[in-house]
């Protein structure tokens, strides 16, 4: 039986390598992450061979309500008895219900929604709306930003290597350092349509801005009639201990994008939510931005169930409590392993461990995988480990992750190549 499963696993990896991506298989194998996802439940996933892992990566924050949440599955099953994806040109109750719900739970006067399938599409829509509504062209974005790999969104990524092979990209994009208000002031011109920001940078390494940054950005936007776009795709839906990260600073954007965890990890959906006055752009051309599968009726039912679940179970509060539990463990680790762990950046269950050197991220990823924890360094910087477990993670699971980290660091501190970055 065990041999059979191993054979199934090897075949799956070999086929994946041949028909999808050889380099991906090579890389994940080297990192000890050659897992064939099988059973999934709560904060955990099981490899096809039966090995259990606590998932602290969750597709960068897709699984806020946990993997295969029974209540969301039940809502989806009910929807399948009644609906299909729907026709994008027609209206439906699930679409209207979810758009209304998003207007209720998003901060301030965000009121209207365009649905999409993924995060990049949501950011594409946000940038198009900003240009269309303001009739201005320039979009400001930040270094290390991540907004997706689609057309407009790709132009706003703060990492050149994602963009260079595909140039020329959409013109009119200007990059500034994240958290630097003076740089923003200098970048503004009469033709600036919008600035797009993650309130906390995820892929960039869990970068939390200074407390005065987002309020100051809002003020400058107001002074110059620039739209403020918040990409809450990773930070939204309770991840940081509030429903949306921007609420930590009391700043309301003009446009907000959400995706990932709105899907419940079960049905893809994204949304671009904007203020009522911006709707005026769509009144003369209501069919200017369409998405065949965006806001499918099945996805909208799932989105509603996800929001209900987060609210009913107060997952924001749970994220705060579990975040504190993680934090006390991280503080111990910083004290015990100063040559490995430099600092922790954290809001709720959006957590970044800053290691002392770039070789540590890949090596700890492998050691954590050996101990049954998926914890991966960020794409932008291998000296940072991004931890974004499901918000339903239990205290016992938090302790397990902390123990795995401690054991991994103990082992790593005895190995070669530490304290050097050369």
């Amino acid at each position, binding site marked *: 039986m065990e041999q059979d499963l191993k054979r199934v696993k090897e075949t799956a990896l070999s086929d994946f390598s041949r028909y999808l991506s*050889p380099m991906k298989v*090579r*890389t994940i194998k*080297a990192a000890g992450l050659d897992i064939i996802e099988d059973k999934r439940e709560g904060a955990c996933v099981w490899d096809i061979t039966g090995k259990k892992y606590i998932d602290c990566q969750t597709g960068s924050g897709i699984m806020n309500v946990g993997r295969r949440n029974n209540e969301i599955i039940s809502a989806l099953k009910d929807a399948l008895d009644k609906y299909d994806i729907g026709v994008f040109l027609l209206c439906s109750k699930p679409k209207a219900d979810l758009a209304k719900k998003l207007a209720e739970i998003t901060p301030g006067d965000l009121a209207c929604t365009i649905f999409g399938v993924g995060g990049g599409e949501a950011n594409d829509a946000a940038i198009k709306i900003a240009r269309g509504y303001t009739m201005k062209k320039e979009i400001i974005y930040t270094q290390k930003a991540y907004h997706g790999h689609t057309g407009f969104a790709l132009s706003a990524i703060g990492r050149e*290597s994602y963009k260079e092979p595909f140039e020329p990209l959409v013109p009119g994009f200007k990059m500034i350092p994240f958290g630097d208000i003076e740089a923003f002031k200098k970048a503004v011109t009469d033709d600036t349509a919008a600035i797009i920001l993650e309130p906390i940078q995820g892929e960039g390494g869990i970068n939390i801005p200074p407390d005065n940054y987002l309020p100051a950005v809002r003020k400058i936007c107001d002074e110059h009639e620039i739209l403020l776009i918040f990409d809450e795709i990773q930070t939204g839906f309770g991840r940081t201990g509030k429903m949306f990260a921007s609420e930590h600073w009391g700043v309301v954007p003009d446009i907000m994008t959400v995706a990932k965890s709105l899907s419940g990890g079960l049905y893809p959906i994204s949304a671009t939510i904007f203020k009522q006055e911006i709707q005026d752009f769509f009144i003369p051309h209501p069919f200017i931005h369409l998405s065949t599968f965006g806001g499918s009726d099945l996805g909208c039912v799932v989105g509603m169930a996800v929001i209900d679940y987060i609210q009913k179970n107060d997952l924001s509060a749970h994220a705060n409590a579990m975040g504190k539990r993680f934090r006390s463990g991280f503080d111990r680790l910083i004290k015990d392993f100063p040559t490995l762990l430099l600092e922790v950046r954290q809001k709720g269950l959006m957590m970044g461990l800053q290691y002392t050197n770039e*070789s540590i991220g*890949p090596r700890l990823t492998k050691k954590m995988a050996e101990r049954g924890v998926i914890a991966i360094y960020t*794409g932008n910087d291998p000296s940072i480990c991004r931890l974004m477990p499901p918000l339903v993670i239990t205290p016992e699971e938090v302790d397990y992750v902390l123990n795995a980290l401690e054991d991994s660091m103990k082992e790593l501190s005895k*190995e070669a190549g530490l304290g050097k970055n050369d």
Partner: protein
Amino acid sequence: MATKQDILEALADYQVQCNDNKRLRKMQRDWSKLIHFNADDTEDKFTMNCVKGEIVSFEAGAVGAPDIIVSAKSEYLCDMFWGDLNPSQKYLQGEIRVKASQEDIVRLDAITMIIWPDA
């Protein structure tokens, strides 16, 4: 321990393997890097110049400002150039250290995968 001459011979073979591989040359045609290799135990240094996917030269000594620095025991460097070890594995054990962007680290690994698929 590998001598300077051992490593230069391995590098010569590596240059032939890379430059004769059409698939690799096409894949790496947008990649131009100056790479330094440091042997920790013997303190020997080597420079390799890769231009548009072709290894145009290599020599003993650290020449120019490198884009990538690879450091390891002389024996590991030698084995790596002969294709006798999996560099990813040694990298994850801290035995090979690379100072480079993530993209360049993946590129180095991609070269190995193409010329020695079983390494």
